[in-house]
């Protein structure tokens, strides 16, 4: 599954995208953020306050309790400030 990071999530992690292979038991987007946060200081910093992170599955907004199984692309980003 491809993961994309935007804005300060991208800056804190230090990369814009990567391939993820989470272990069994990591099922929802909330699980995925907790798993990522344990991967290192940069991830811990990006996900230190997961409730402010917005998530999308295959380019559609998704809630943190959504399971990601089957998705090809998952994205993590701050609240939007376009317009």
């Amino acid at each position: 599954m491809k993961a994309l990071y935007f804005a300060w999530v991208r800056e804190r992690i230090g990369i814009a995208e990567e391939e993820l292979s989470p272990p069994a038991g990591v099922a929802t987007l909330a699980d995925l953020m907790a798993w990522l946060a344990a991967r290192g200081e940069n991830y811990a910093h990006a996900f230190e306050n997961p409730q402010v992170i917005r998530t999308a599955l295959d380019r559609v907004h998704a809630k943190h309790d959504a399971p990601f199984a089957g998705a090809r692309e998952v994205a993590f980003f701050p609240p939007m400030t376009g317009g």
Partner: protein
Amino acid sequence: MATVSVQDADYDTAAEIAAMTAGRTDVGAVVTFSGLCRDDGGTLDALEIEHYPGMAEDEILRVCAEAEARWPLQGCRVIHRHGAIRPGDNIVLVVTASAHRVAAFAAADFLMDYLKSEAPFWKRNRRRADAPGDGGWVSPKASDEAALDRWR
């Protein structure tokens, strides 16, 4: 029916109005909204707008479809720029057309409120070298969330 562009190039409001109304005699009202890059304090070099390619277009089209379901529109056009935007430059254009003014106004207003909160764009202030502070990512405004409540 809606047409959406996400681009770094500037846009031409007059050309967009003309494209929506040319050769037609059933349009009674056209509303445009242009969002521009402000620099109230004179400290901004540029606004840098990051977006999620693909999802940005999809989300705006989804919001346009919602507007078209709510109001009888004859045209709906959105252009959102990304990249470095200088003070005074255009950021976003919404054009709506309808037989009557109430629908055209409401749809444009609705589109802007939803674009602000749902389309995956992020703004960062790049300050002038001589300006104090470090700029940084723009925070969402509570008033933008409140604006959405008008449509719920």
